[in-house]
């Protein structure tokens, strides 16, 4: 019988090969996919986040854990869909118009996926109307906006304004983040939260989804 604690360890240690192998074994043994996610993967990613917060882990470890988690999730996701399992929330995420930087955004997206969210990643240099369209089509409850450049920060406000113009601002919570972004700036442009790193972004997404 598969030792599921190995899945937890594999995600925590960024061991993609083992994460995938254990997941395959578990699926073959008909383990409930929700159990894999909720009992092993989410707690593992929470621990990754905790270690990042207390600076035992850094960007490379976060990337490795995300890769392990993704490998496993790719096997589990079709089973979750087949079961009609509801995610913790639906997040549309992207780097705003004019900005090509996506490492931070990718990390947040991975951590959210690992936290049980369905993530619709629109990539980088995303126009406001694309955020609006995706949020509508996917019935998202959270929109995450990333920017690295000072010249593209204003596109966060443009995107929030576009959500309002489309009449869906009250249906979605907007989280913003990126090196030059501050809590004050988030407030000024009418965002619902500022994630100073990927871990905080997941915590905020959970809080906002629970509201």
């Amino acid at each position, binding site marked *: 019988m598969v030792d599921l604690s190995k899945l937890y360890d594999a995600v925590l240690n*960024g061991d993609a090969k083992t994460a995938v192998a254990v997941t395959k074994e578990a699926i073959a043994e008909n383990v409930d996919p929700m159990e894999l996610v909720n009992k092993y993967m989410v707690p593992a990613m929470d621990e990754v986040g905790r270690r*990042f917060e207390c*600076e035992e882990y*850094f*960007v*490379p*470890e976060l*990337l*490795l854990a995300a*890769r392990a988690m993704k490998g496993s999730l790719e096997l589990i996701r079709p089973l979750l869909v087949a079961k009609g399992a509801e995610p913790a929330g639906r997040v549309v995420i992207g780097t705003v*118009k*004019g*900005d*090509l*930087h996506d*490492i931070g955004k*990718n990390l947040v997206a991975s951590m959210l996926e690992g936290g049980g969210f369905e993530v619709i990643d629109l990539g980088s*240099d995303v126009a406001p109307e694309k955020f609006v369209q995706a949020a509508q089509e996917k019935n998202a409850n959270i929109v995450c906006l990333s920017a690295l*450049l*000072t*010249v593209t920060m204003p596109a966060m406000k443009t995107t929030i304004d576009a959500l309002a113009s489309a009449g869906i601002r009250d249906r979605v919570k907007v989280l913003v983040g990126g*090196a*030059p972004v*501050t809590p004050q700036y988030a407030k000024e442009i009418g965002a619902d939260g500022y994630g*100073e*790193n990927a871990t905080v972004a997941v915590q905020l997404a959970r809080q906002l989804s629970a509201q």
Partner: protein
Amino acid sequence: MNSKERLLEALSHREPDCIPIDFGGTSVTGIHVSCVAALRDYFSLTKQPVKVHEPYQMLGWIDEDLKQAMGIDVEGVFPRKTMFGFPNENWKPWRMDDGLEVLVPEGFRVTRDANGDTLIYPEGDTTAPPSGRMPKGGYFFDAIIRQEPIDEEKLNPADNLEEFEPISTEDLDYLVTTAQAAAATGRGVIASFGGTAFGDIALVPAPFLKHPKGIRDVSEWYISTRTRRDYIHSVFSKQCEIALANLEKIHAAVGSLVDVVFVCGTDFGTQKSSFCSVETFRELYAPYYKAVNDWIHRHTSWKTFKHSCGSVERFIPSLIESGFDILNPVQCSAAGMEAEHLKSTYGQDIVFWGGGVDTQRVLPFGTPAEVRDQVLARCKVFSQGGGFVFNSIHNIQARTPVENIVAMLNAVYEFNGRKP
């Protein structure tokens, strides 16, 4: 005291007659071409398109008339070729998306994709895959990641060493000519020879190479610093060997024409944390920095310049131990990087080149009065006992209001008690 003397006094941790000012001396202390153009207008200088001498970040060349108007004390010496691998020569006009007419080198060859993004090509060769992209309406290029699938069995450190080679006669001659011209200005001279950064993430994708091999994806490189450490050591070790041989040749050619060497631009800090632990820094990077800096200190009078954005307070003791004399850009807005703390704790042992004003918030988005207040406060803290060269925290970004740049300069003049 002339500009060179002023710089050398500050670098020797003695108070010069006034704080030396750098803008344009390196690719991390420059000004976006649009802001250089705006400054030329502000100072009513001859109307002429500004040269983009660093096309990756679209930095504008600061001509002699503007240097004099701004009171700049530092002159830069740059490699012959740009980040995209073509030489900085034979200038031609180019129009930015916002309509600004600039000059770019002949090798700056671009195309537009279906989105209206501008694509730029390594060595100006449009038959090679593009290596940089500027989004439509954008102001900077970003590297296009060209990563071949990685076969663990076949990974060869030599693939990540293609860009490190013995300096050519042509490149060496160029350095000599430009160093002579720089020294003749009477300003202090900072030179960027290249090849000594070790893991600078902006250089990993190699936008200057036509068909880069090895590990070229940014995330994959970061992961490799943890999972393929032997590979990274092999790359750094050979790179170091090549760099030391090049430094010997360069020093024999330029000698004391140069005062400072921009050794390394590898970023270790993020806004709130860092890219690795201090232990990793000491194990993976410090030995190579120490080898380069020790060679420089043993054989030359050059001071060594380290650039790292972000929260790097925790690394400063190791940077000093590795032989760095100067830290840049001194990002005071990052965690643990408060000016007073840095100056009182490390000011005896390392020069702060930067830290003058925040380019993420105050300079682009603040009022001129806020800019003045911050600049005066930073000058007061950092200038005590010397060890300070005024520069903003990294390059002045596009769309920064010229009034704020002028407010910054005026505040330095006010603190210095003299105008250029």
